[in-house]
């Protein structure tokens, strides 16, 4: 019920015959919109104390940073809705960047044929996304077929993917990913550098993926089944839901989103570094949790995650503008996350009252 409300502000309010009074209704509304309210308060606060905060330049930089975390958060939302967790996203970001870098700078070496194949940038990107999905699939297989706890499986994958990223260029960077005319693989930097209607591509990608994710979560059987698995996997199974397959797919989605972020970052930097994406998983989880998704699964929304990512982004951006110590910034981020979950618990209690 809460999902519906958060996802579409335009949907008619759900009447509830067990309401106690106007105060409770207002209280519930405030709590269910808390992420929005927090975001607006934060933005208002920073706008008031800093003139440059609302400059379009700053807002675009802010949103560009948010896009990275938000896209990871999209995939993470599906995983967490099933009651799982994906700790490997940061490492997949790093690995994906290295895969793209290697394909552009060195091509695909086929030793048995003694040839090197260079791909068009589009194909490079598709291959990279597929690699991300394969890593996600590996997570899914380990979790559902070998019954390894998601935390452990993806923790292992965090190491494996990072190790592969480091191994791919022996710990060094693939620099200058511009490609060359004669190989026909130029244009990679455009993904991170170019704009459409003054907005960088990465922001458009975030918007597009968000819309798709909301659609999947709300309008497809897959989305419904993800919620069902997180709410009660046994009941879902007895209702004919292919629990293992659906769960596996959420990790594939998360792998896809991670690879997308890997591409965006490598393109923005015009180079691929194997350490890219370290601790990104934690930011993504923070965005999901801030957005009101329960780590126990079954409860939460895609849109909430986007708001969560913006709350983190605005907080960081504002604090940087104010010249706050970066150490202090980290502490404040932590406080905000805990606060959000505390409020979440209040909401759960309010719901149970009704």
């Amino acid at each position, binding site marked *: 019920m809460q999902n519906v409300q958060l996802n579409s502000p335009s949907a008619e309010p759900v*009447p*509830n015959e067990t309401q106690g009074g106007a105060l409770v209704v207002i209280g519930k509304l405030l709590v269910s919109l808390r992420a929005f309210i927090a975001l607006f308060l934060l933005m208002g606060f920073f706008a008031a104390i800093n003139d440059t905060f609302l400059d379009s330049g700053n807002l675009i930089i802010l949103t560009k940073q948010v896009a990275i975390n938000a896209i990871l958060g999209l995939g993470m939302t599906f995983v967490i809705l099933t009651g799982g967790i994906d700790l490997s996203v940061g490492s997949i970001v790093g690995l994906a960047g290295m895969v793209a870098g290697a394909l552009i700078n060195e091509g695909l070496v086929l030793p048995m044929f003694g040839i090197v194949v260079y791909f068009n940038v589009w194909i490079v990107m598709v291959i990279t996304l597929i690699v991300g999905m394969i890593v996600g699939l590996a997570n899914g297989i380990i979790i559902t077929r070998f019954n390894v706890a998601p935390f452990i499986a993806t923790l292992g994958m965090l190491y494996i993917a990072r190790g592969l990223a480091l191994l791919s260029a022996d710990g060094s960077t693939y620099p200058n990913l511009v490609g060359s005319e004669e190989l026909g693989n130029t244009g990679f930097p455009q993904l991170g550098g170019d704009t459409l209607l003054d907005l960088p591509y990465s922001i458009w990608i975030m918007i597009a993926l968000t819309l798709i994710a909301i659609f999947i979560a709300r309008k497809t*059987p897959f989305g419904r089944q993800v919620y*069902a698995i997180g*709410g009660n996997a*046994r009941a879902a199974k007895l209702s004919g*839901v292919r629990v293992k397959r659906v769960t596996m797919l959420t990790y594939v989605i998360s792998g896809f989103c991670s690879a997308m972020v890997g591409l965006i970052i490598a393109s923005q930097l015009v180079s691929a570094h194997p350490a890219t994406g370290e601790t990104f998983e934690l930011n993504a989880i923070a965005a999901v949790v801030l957005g009101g998704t329960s780590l126990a699964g079954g409860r939460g929304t895609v849109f909430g995650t986007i708001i969560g990512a913006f709350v983190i982004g605005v907080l960081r951006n504002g604090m940087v503008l104010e010249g706050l110590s970066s150490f202090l910034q980290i502490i404040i981020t932590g406080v905000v996350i805990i606060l959000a979950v505390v409020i979440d618990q209040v909401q759960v209690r309010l719901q149970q009252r009704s």
Partner: protein
Amino acid sequence: MSDDVILRAEQVIKIYPGTVALNKVDFNIYRGKVNVLIGENGAGKSTLMKILAGVEEATAGRLSLEGKEIAPKSPREAEELGIGIIYQELNLFPNMNVSENIFVAHERTLGGMVIDHRSQEDRARELLQRLEQPIDPRTFVQDLRIGQQQIVEIAKALALDVRILIMDEPTSALSNTEVEVLFRVIDELRAQGMSIIYISHKLEELLRIGDYVTILRDGNLMAEAPIPEIDLGWIVENMVGRETVRHYTPAPHEVKQTIFSVQHLTLPRPRTKDYTLKDISFDLHAGEILGLYGLMGAGRTELFECLMGLHPQAVGEIVLDGELLKANTVRDRIEQGLMLVPEDRQREGLVQTMSVSNNMLLASLRRYFNWIMLNRTQEQEAVEQYVQELSIKVSNPENLISSLSGGNQQKVVVGKALLTNPRVLLLDEPTRGIDVGAKEEIFDIVVQLAQRGLGIIFVSTELKEVMAISDRILVMSKGKITREFQRDEADEQDLVEASAIGHGVENEAIGVS
């Protein structure tokens, strides 16, 4: 009345936001008696018990214990006053052993630091002896059967030296033999001077075990009386104003051709040479209600699970509409036309975090999916249709499933099953934990489905229910079908005997005679 009242609730009011759960209720608990409390779901029984046990506070009203006013603010305070409660859902830690469970949060220690396991185990053994259950205090609770776990719950309450023991539907998960044991225990506790509050839906039980009965309806006190002065009809009248399911006569429905057939179904027990199900064969006809009766552990639930494809290691043939079913996943079975309404609504039937409508649609999502998205309108129509057909009481299907009463939740599970268009419906204890009124409605629904030509297998541990609704009854014991009865030849005595075949000596040995 010569019996004296140990605990008295007077004019208790409990208001939750939007609802009055208890409206000026008086409740007397007589010393050394079994005080039975009954009422339909939502009548306020559990709320009243929670107030007595300190879990909830009354909005208004007085509680007095031995004439002194009390107001327990936590279960701990209630325990100190001598009031213990055994909840409907067992509150045990499966990963701890029996004695640890009995003394949890009241550990006996050496010097306040170290748990004195020795003393705990000795005391636990004493308590279990008193309950005639020689369970080893070191057994892990997860290894006990439900009936034994119930006994551990009782031992836990006894360990606190409570004078008043509240038992909220203690028999809902017990087999008949286990119920017998429990009743003996209750008799003994009563003889030892314990005052017991006993809540149950099973009316015959109450007449057998109770001394006084108090009836609640919609948060109001309806009546109180000593049991010898009343009968079943009186209770039902005060509870619902309707007759009980016992006298239920199904509307006529025609039993047609065979649609479903199980041949030599066998389910080996893992890592042993034993069998959970052995050589089960039977036919089911279109329009037939086939009752399946058996004690706990007879294999009824496992049989259903096999039919739904949950046990790939099972062997045997399942034929539906002349077609041998090969594929072995729940999804395939649902598509082929089998559907299960599972025994445990909360754990297997419903997703508590989802709405009424999403729960109902969960098993049939594909019918509303046009390869791009779910068709909201079609979904709503389907839900609306079954909300009406099954008369589910819900103001808005988008409300959370947990906002419904037990009976209505069960109807939602049935609705979910029907939305898959089944040919054969497997009902595992569909009437468990719901009130008489809702039971009758479920019965009506089952008969209507039979009239429409579905084949229905109806499982219940309540003998009278099985006899009331079935066209034919199969009795299972120890994983085998022991007898088959036609409706008109079914006799209570014979059914019970058939359900006990294979039990006996070995059963004595594990302490459930």
